[in-house]
C-alpha cells in the first residue's frame, strides 16, 4: 500500500468532491442533491484517512474524525430525508427550485 503515492488518493478525493459538488449545484431533485452532499463528505473522509496514513497514524485523529463524519452524515441523511418527505407531502415534488419560500 505504501507504494501508492498520497497524491493519488488526493486525485480520487478531488474527483469525488467535484462530482458531489456538481450534483449539489446542478441536480434539481432533492434526493440527488443529498447524494451529492454524501459524495462530498466521503471525499473529505478519503482525505482524512490518506493524510492520517502518510503522516501520523498513532494519534488516530484522522480515523476518529472520519467515524464522526460518517455518523453525523448518517444522522444528517436521516433528517434530510425526513424533511424531503414532508416537503414531498406538502408540494408533491422534490424539486429544490420549487422550494423557495425563504426568498427575500
Amino acid at each position: 500500500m505504501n507504494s501508492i503515492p498520497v497524491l493519488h488518493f488526493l486525485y480520487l478525493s478531488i474527483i469525488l468532491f467535484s462530482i458531489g459538488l456538481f450534483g449539489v449545484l446542478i441536480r434539481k431533485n432533492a434526493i440527488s442533491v443529498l447524494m451529492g452532499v454524501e459524495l462530498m463528505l466521503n471525499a473529505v473522509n478519503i482525505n482524512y484517512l490518506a493524510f492520517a496514513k502518510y503522516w501520523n497514524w498513532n494519534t488516530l485523529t484522522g480515523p476518529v474524525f472520519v467515524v464522526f463524519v460518517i455518523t453525523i452524515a448518517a444522522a444528517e441523511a436521516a433528517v434530510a430525508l425526513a424533511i424531503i418527505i414532508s416537503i414531498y407531502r406538502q408540494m408533491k415534488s422534490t424539486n429544490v427550485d420549487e422550494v423557495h419560500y425563504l426568498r427575500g
Partner: protein
Amino acid sequence: MIEYSWLIPTMPALAYAVIILFTRRSKVLSGLISILTMAACLGLSVGILIEVLAKAPADRVISISWSWLEIPPWTAHVGVLIDPLSVNMLLVVTLISLLVQIYSWGYMHGEVRFSSYYSYLSLFTSSMLLLVLSNNFLQIFVGWELVGLCSYLLIGFWYFKPEAADACKKAFVVNRVGDMGFLMGVITIGMVFQTFDFAEVEKMVSTGVANGTFQTGFIAGIALLLFCGAVGKSAQFPLHVWLPDAMEGPTPVSALIHAATMVAAGVFMVARTYSLFLVDQHAMTVVAFIGGFTALFAASIALAQDDIKRILAYSTLSQLGYMIMALGVGGYTSGMFHLTTHACFKALLFLGAGSVIHGVHNQDIWKMGGLWKKMGITAATFVIATLAIAGIFPLAGFWSKDAILAAVYESQIPGHIVLYFAAVFTAFLTAFYMFRLFFVVFTGEPRDHHAHDHAHESPFTMTIPLMILAILSISVGWLNLPGFDAYSKFVYHGEFHEEVFNWTMAWASLLVAIAGIILSALFYYWKVFSAEKTAETFKPIYLLLKNKYYVDEFYGWMVKKFVFGLASICTWFDDNVVDDGMVDGSGWITRKMGSLFSLTQTGYVQNYALVIFGAVAVIYLMVSF
C-alpha cells in the same frame, strides 16, 4: 386701615372662589356674596382715603412688599402701594363696580348663569384692584393680564352667540399684542435696574439720567414699550379695534370695562410710570399724538354708527384719547381727573343704555324713539350724563375736559396747537353725536311701535345706581372748582404747583359744545336739516365713517393673508417636507434598501451553495497569492 389694604384685591378673589366652588347653585347667595364683598372693599377704600388725607402730603406714599419669587439678583415682590393715585383709582374702581353689581341684579335677572356672572365680576374687579394697588412692574403686569382674562370671560359670557365668541377672542388677542410690548418693557426694566419696584426704578432713572448713566432715548424706548401695553388696554389707535366689539358682553359688563376696570388700566399705568415718560420729550410727544389722534378718529366714527352701545364705545375711545393726550402733554392731574369724572358719566351712559335695551330689547337707535315718556328716570339720568360728557357747565365733564384743553394749550411739546384744535373739534363732535344719540332714542315719535308699547321703566335695582351715578356726574367735577382745587392738591406728580383755571378757554369750549348740541338738535330734534340727505351728499365720507375707516377689514385681511397664509405654508412644510419627506422618507429608504439586498436571498439552496463555494474559492485565491 392701610395695613388691611391687601384685603381689597383679596376679598373679591375669594368671593370668586367661593361662588365658583360652593354657591353656584344659589343665585341669591352668589349675588349677595359678590355685592357685599364689593361694598366692604368700597368701605375699606374710603377708610384708606380718610387715613391718607389725614397725613401730610409728603407722607402719603406707603409701600408694603412680600417676596414672591427670588432669582438672584432679582426679587419679585407682591406688594401694596398706597398713594393718592392708587387711592383715587381704588375709589373709582370699587364704587363703579359696586354700582354695576347692584345694577346687574336687575339686568341679569332670569339669567341661567347668574352665579357665574357674579363670580366673573368679582374676579374682574379683583384683578383691577391688584393692578391698581401694585407697587412693582411685575405685579402690575399680572393684574393687567388677569384683567384681560376676565374681560375675555365676560365679553364671551353669552358664548353661544357667534359674535360674542369672536369678540372675546379678538379682545384677548389684541390686548395680548399690546401686552407683549409691555412685557418686553418690564423685562428690560428688570434687566437694566435689577428691580421691579416703582419707587426704586424712579429713583434710579432720575439719578441715572442726571449723571449720564442712562441716555434719555433709552429710557424713552422703555417708556414706549410700556406704552404699547397701554395702547392695547386703553384701546388707542391702532389697537382700538377690540373695544367696540366688546359690547357683545352683557351691558353692565360694558359699563365696567369702559368706565372702571379695564380701559382705565392703560391710563393708570402711564400715570403710574410717569417719571419714565417725563425723561424724554419724544416719548411724551408720541403719547400725546396717539391720544389726540384717537380722540378725533373715534369721535368721527361715532358720528355714523347706529348701535347705541357702539356709539358709546367710540365715545369711550375718544375720551380715553383725551386722557392719554393729557398725560402726553404733561397734564397728569387733568388726565387722572378726567379719568375719574369719565368713569362716572360713562358708567351712567352704559347703564342707561342697558336700561333702554332692557326695556326695548333692541340696540338699534333707529328702532327706538320717544322713550322719554316711558322711561323717565333712565331718560333724565341719561341726559345728565350726555350733558356731562359734552362738557356743559357745571357738570363733571366741563371741569375735567377744560383742564385737559388748557394743559394741551399750554404745553411745550411741538405741534401742541394742532393737538389743541383737534381736541376742541373733538369736543364739538362729542357734543354732536352724543345728542344725536339722545334725541333719536328719547325724543320724537316712536319708530317701532311694538317695541315702544312693550317698553317699561327698569326695576329699582337698576334705577338707583343710575341716580347715584347721575348725582356723581353732576358733582364730581366740583372737587376741582377753581380756588377749591381739592383734587389737584391731592393727585399730582412730583411737586405740587397751583394751576390757574383758564376761564377764557373754558367758555370757548363751552360755546363749541353748545354749538354741537344745537347742530345736533337742528338735525334730529327740530329736523330742520335732513340727516339722510346730508349722508347722501357726502356718501363716500359717510361710508368711510360707518365702516370705521375699514380698519377691521384691513386687520382681518392681514391676519388672513399673513398669519393664516404662513400657517398654511408651515403646515404644508410640516406635512410634506418634514413628515412625509424626512421622517417617512428615511423609513422609505430603509425599506428600499431592504428590498434591494433581499434580491440576494433567492430561496434557491443551490444558489446559496454556489455562493459559498465561490466565496471559498475567492478566499483561497486571495490567501494563496
